[in-house]
């Protein structure tokens, strides 16, 4: 038995206190009686029962001591060890599908070992036992819900594979623990290579998760970062970071190419378990696909390459309607991709058709026409037909609260902004107020399938916002919110496992995406935005719609996945393969932690019942109370005087 909170055992010092209290309670008090004659006679007739009572007193003390000890042990959160391999009701198998699981050694990948172990668990399922299979990558995914259909489980496991993404084991294990159904015994088995730092709240000592460690130490080097940045002189600089795990220093050949052209080749020395960075002027093209690769033959291939795409700045046609505002015009026009058209007003009847020709309509006050589709940024103006009802004009409102995590308001300091007057509106259903004053909402958004609206309650000219750094940031955030990617003019790259939002021009409702492996899939586009989650594979993904095509680059670039050494305490406890295990084959049983189950409830219940038992034992022996005695005395006095 082990303890999750062993410090609580200090409370066992209470045991002598209990014994002392018992001794005090049993203290012999001297009382004078007129004669011992009757007492001695009484004793003579009670010898046996007195012996029993002495025994009961001892038992009461024993019960008290055991109750305290039991409760203290329960407080220390004991974990009872069950021999591994012993099935216990349902099983949730969590397969680590992070990039490090693809590391190969002796021709076998860690994930192959994990798959074999999972299949062994399926084979060992007891009768009426069920299993659920969860893939633990950047987000957990249920591969097979609870079922006792072994074939379905095998198919789900066979169809799983390691992804190119970084893992998030804590969230995945907590997700798996939450899948357990109340009233059914269920264990969670995590099959992993342990290439993560710790399990935090999902620690096996706290949760009883059984960890099965697979794989052994493997030499590896990988690209952990690649980026391009513009220099002050107008040029472009390339930055690449490489890390190595294992016990050997090495020289890693780095090759960066643009299409078929090799732009950079360099030998990068890296110390044992260290990192190295390369920062050089980029002399290649600033358009198209860029690939950085280290030419090594090591355990993990997914981190040997990093990808980037130089994409031209997206054009965005913006119509500015309303009173002239130099600050607003300047803020919109500063972005290279923005094509700004300014008009005083639009036709209130046919204006909607006019607006459709633009990617964004900005109303600086005035009376906007009804808008059916597109993107609208309205300063102190409300297009008809929206769930925003103008009420009154508010004088001197101040920002009192705003959602700092919203992409529109990111990095904005709105507190000091002075507003002369603002249009107070009542926000209807679906309106998200993201900044407000005491009197009224100041910034709100509203979206539906083909229409996005950003409402700002005041005109820039009626505040000192244009004089603050927050103004161009707000405009930039708004443009990026309406049309993601519009601001990017440099090489972009995304991390595997992340959701990428891509602005799709036009009114396309879906886009075709071709992955690095050549497979194509159709993805929905909503409000001109494609929320693409198919980034589990590193490489180039091409998005196409009618009249639009864009490449995005997705790379692993994760130092934690590049370091293939088992680092978590959980895997250490599982006795993850030690030295000499390199080359272990799937025939070798992976090591696993003994199953530990929390047993605090058992000790708490035992303590509770021992307290009850002690109470009963004392109740049997307790001397009568004074009230009862007075009653008896009155009764006997009445009898004697009659």
């Amino acid at each position, binding site marked *: 038995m082990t303890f999750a909170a062993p410090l609580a055992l200090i409370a066992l010092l209470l045991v002598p206190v209990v014994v002392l209290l018992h001794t005090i309670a*049993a*203290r*012999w*008090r*001297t*009382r*004078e*009686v*007129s*004669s*011992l*004659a*009757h*007492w*001695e*006679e*009484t*004793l003579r*007739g*009670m010898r046996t*029962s*007195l012996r029993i*009572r*002495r025994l009961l*007193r001892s038992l009461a003390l024993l019960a008290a001591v055991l109750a305290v000890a039991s409760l203290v042990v329960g407080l220390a959160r004991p974990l009872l060890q069950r021999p591994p391999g012993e099935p216990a009701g349902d099983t949730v198998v969590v397969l680590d599908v992070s990039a490090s699981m693809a590391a190969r050694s002796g021709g076998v990948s860690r994930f192959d070992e994990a798959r074999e172990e999972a299949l062994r668990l399926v084979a060992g399922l007891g009768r009426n036992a069920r299993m659920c299979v969860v893939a633990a990558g950047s987000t957990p995914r249920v591969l097979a819900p609870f079922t006792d259909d072994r074939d379905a489980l095998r198919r789900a496991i066979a169809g799983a594979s390691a992804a190119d993404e970084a893992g998030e084991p804590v969230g995945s294990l907590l997700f798996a623990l939450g899948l357990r159904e109340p009233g059914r015994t269920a264990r969670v088995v995590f099959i992993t290579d342990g290439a993560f730092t710790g399990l935090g709240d999902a620690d096996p000592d706290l949760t009883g998760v059984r960890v099965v460690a697979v794989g052994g130490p493997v030499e590896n080097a990988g690209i952990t970062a690649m980026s391009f940045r513009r220099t002050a002189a107008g040029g472009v600089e390339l930055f690449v970071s490489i890390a190595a795990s294992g016990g050997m220093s090495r020289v890693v050949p780095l090759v960066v190419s643009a299409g078929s052209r090799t732009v950079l080749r360099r030998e990068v020395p890296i110390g044992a378990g260290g990192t190295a960075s390369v920062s050089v002027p980029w002399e290649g093209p600033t358009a198209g696909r860029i690939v950085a690769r280290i030419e090594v033959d090591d355990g993990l291939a997914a981190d040997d390459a990093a990808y980037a795409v130089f994409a031209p700045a997206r054009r965005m046609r913006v119509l500015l309607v309303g009173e002239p505002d130099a600050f607003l015009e300047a803020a919109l026009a500063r972005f290279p991709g923005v094509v700004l058209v300014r008009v005083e007003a639009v036709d209130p009847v046919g204006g909607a058709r006019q607006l459709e020709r633009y990617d964004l309509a900005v109303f600086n006050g005035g009376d906007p026409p009804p808008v059916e589709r597109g993107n609208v940024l309205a300063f102190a103006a409300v297009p008809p037909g929206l769930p925003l009802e103008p009420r009154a004009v508010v004088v001197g409102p101040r920002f009192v609260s705003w959602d700092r995590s919203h992409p529109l308001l990111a990095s904005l300091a709105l507190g000091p902004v002075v507003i002369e007057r603002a249009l107070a509106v009542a926000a209807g259903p679906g309106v998200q107020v993201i900044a407000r004053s005491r009197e009224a909402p100041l910034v709100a958004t509203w979206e539906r399938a083909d229409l996005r609206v950003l409402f700002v309650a005041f005109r820039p000219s009626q505040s000192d916002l244009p004089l603050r750094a927050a103004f161009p940031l707000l405009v930039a955030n708004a443009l990026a919110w309406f049309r993601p990617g519009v601001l990017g003019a440099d090489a972009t790259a995304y991390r595997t496992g992340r959701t990428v939002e891509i602005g799709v021009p036009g009114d396309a409702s879906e886009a075709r995406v071709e992955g690095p492996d050549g497979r194509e899939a159709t993805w929905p586009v909503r409000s001109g935005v494609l929320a693409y989650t198919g980034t589990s594979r590193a490489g180039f993904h091409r998005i196409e719609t009618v009249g639009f095509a864009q490449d995005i680059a997705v790379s692993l670039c994760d130092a934690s996945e590049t370091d293939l050494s088992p680092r978590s305490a959980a895997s250490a406890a599982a006795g993850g393969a030690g030295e000499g295990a390199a080359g272990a084959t799937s025939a070798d049983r992976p090591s696993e932690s003994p199953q530990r189950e929390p047993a605090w409830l058992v000790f708490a219940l035992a303590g509770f019942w021992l307290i009850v038992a002690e109470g009963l034992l004392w109740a049997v*022996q*307790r*001397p*009568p*109370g*004074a009230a009862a*005695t007075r009653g*008896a*005395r009155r*009764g*006997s*006095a009445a009898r*004697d*005087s009659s």
Partner: protein
Amino acid sequence: MDRVLFDREFLAKLEHLSLVARRLYRGETRGAHGSPMRGASPDFADHRDYQPGDDFRTIDWNIYARLDRLFVKLFAEEEDLGVHLLVDASASMGFGTPPKLDYARKLAAALGYLALHSLDRVGATTFAAGLGGSLSPRRGRAQVFHLLEYLSRVTAAGGTSVDGSLQDYALRTRSPGLAIVISDLLGSPGWERGVAALRYRRFDIVLIQVLDQEEISPAGFGPSRLRDAETGRTLRLVVDEPVLAAYRERLAAFHGSVEEFCLRSGVEYLRAGTLVPFEDLVLRYLRQGAHLHARR
């Protein structure tokens, strides 16, 4: 005199009790608390010296004329029986709040007072391990004062031997009478022999057992070291409800045995706890005619 014990209130109670006694025994002559031979002619039995307080009608004037000395006539059924107050003054009588001895003294004083009012001779003796000092039997009002003074000086000390003490008294006393024995009967095995000795000497006996409430119904003690007030011996015992129940059962059995013995022996038996006002016990004594039965 113990002015605290025999205060004005106590004396007033005595007066009240004497009135009650007179009402109960109205029409009876001196020394004859209900003759067993009512209606029969009294036979002359003897003379004795006149003592102040004797009934003038019993003076033999013939002898006075001859001898110039006063003698009273004694008749057959009219024995000159004294009232003997025997008070247990052992250490166990000092137990209780108030001490049982105080209760016994008040009881003895009251009964003695009533007897003196009825023109009986009253004497008193204390006993513990053996007989203590005594007050000679006398008649008359002055004896009341002597009796109260005597009783006020009595203290509880020493062991108990009811048996030996009563046997001694029976042997020592020449003229039997009504013996009123006031004791707790605790720690004195064989007390029956003492009472039997008095019976043998033709004493009429009233046995009054006085107990403290703590003895009748002890309060919960828990783990206790009980110390005997007389002998100083100790007994370790966890006094809990079962033990108290057994104790009460044992005590009830003892009382039962006392009652049975007294019934068999023709001994009038009264038992009271110190919570019972002594005057209530005296009234019970009078109503029961205990002293009448004893004289039969």
